[in-house]
């Protein structure tokens, strides 16, 4: 597992260079980070959702550790989405922040999962913490589709790259196989980064639990 995770990181580095080396001067380049990070953040919260359900069903501490790991990594990714988005917005719109649906719901998403981590720190008893945060993890996921669909539901300044919205077509101008290839490569790279970070965190949690068990004896 460790080997795979390290492999992912080594595989991941040249890809980063690839996309950045393409045309660093263009502000649009940040999109290659922005969108994969956003997708991975949604995915991370989806993992939290699923493992929370599994915890409540199977009562296995393992699932709680999975959801904690995914939530922590997800929060970092959600923050990076906001940060990269703001940098891009400053270059294009002239402001770092505009109150419009996509940005608002993304911020909400970030805050919800920061709340999730705060709830965890406020509960001492591990079993109770696992149960209650699983409940919150399920409820929190409701805000993910809202954020994802926001640019399709409301008229929004945020560009829509794929598919149509209720208010006409998006058409972000993503054409040409080389652009798509870089995007897909980055998507894979960030996916692997997510998987490896989460599995590191998960292992860490498992060791901690084992340590606690030995200490208890």
């Amino acid at each position, binding site marked *: 597992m460790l080997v795979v995770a390290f492999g992912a990181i080594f595989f991941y580095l040249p890809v980063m260079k690839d996309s950045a080396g393409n045309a660093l001067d263009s502000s649009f380049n940040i999109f290659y980070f922005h969108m994969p990070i956003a997708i991975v953040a949604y995915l991370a919260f989806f993992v939290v959702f699923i493992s929370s359900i599994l915890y409540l069903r199977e009562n296995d501490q393992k699932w709680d550790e999975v959801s904690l790991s995914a939530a922590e990594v997800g929060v970092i990714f959600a923050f990076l989405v906001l940060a990269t988005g703001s940098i891009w917005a400053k270059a294009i719109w002239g402001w770092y922040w505009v109150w419009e649906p996509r940005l608002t719901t993304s911020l909400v998403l970030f805050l919800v999962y920061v709340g999730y981590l*705060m709830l965890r720190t*406020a509960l001492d008893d591990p079993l109770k913490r696992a149960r*209650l945060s699983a*409940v919150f993890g399920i409820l929190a996921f*409701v805000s993910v589709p*809202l954020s994802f669909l926001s640019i399709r539901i409301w008229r929004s300044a945020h560009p829509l790259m794929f598919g149509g919205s209720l208010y006409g077509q998006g058409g972000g101008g993503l054409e040409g196989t080389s652009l798509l290839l870089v995007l897909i490569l980055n998507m894979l790279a960030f996916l692997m980064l997510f998987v490896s970070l989460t599995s590191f965190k998960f292992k860490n949690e498992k060791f901690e639990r084992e340590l606690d068990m030995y200490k208890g004896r």
Partner: protein
Amino acid sequence: MLKGLNIAFKDLKIESRAREIFISMVVFSLLILIIFSIAFSDLLSSASKTATVASGVLWICFIFAGTLGLNRTFATEVQNGCMDGLKMCPIPRNSIYLSKVIFVFLLMLLVEIITIPMFSVLFNYQFTAIIWVGIVILLGSFGFVVVGCLISALVIKARAGEMLLPVLLLPLSLPVIIPAVSATSGLLRGEDIFSLMSSIRLLVVYDFVFFAVSMLVFEYVVED
């Protein structure tokens, strides 16, 4: 369902005697109104400007008052060990949750019934389309209470739970609050109800989703 009503009735009975939650909610809501009315006193001359701020002011009043009420709902049950008593009753756990939703929802409605005329007086504003505004406020408050009661039960066991409640509740209930506020402000600015249908549809969907999810997971919250 019926058992939930019974517990809610018990809560209402206690509340009607002591009135401590209700009074503080109303007073709090009115104080916010007064502060806004002073802060926005320059805007009050024009009805269109008032209409722009109205939905924001109203919803802040409702949400803050609601949070105040939610803070106490499960606290009163835990105080004298009533929660254990309720859990021992031969009723589905969901009905405890349902009772709290009904109770807080009714309290919030009462607060809203008092707040809206006061808003009308302090901001010198004439409500039109009051039925639709009422429906939107009903839907919005219901969604807020549905999420709020679950979070309230959740944080009761946490350290500094009363501080945690707004931190967890506000972002989580935003999927309900955003369409509610936008629909209210649209109505107050005199827009046609049919142009706001997408917000209202979203509101109804999230009400259902949150209610269904909360009913499903509540028993895990109180399980000990």
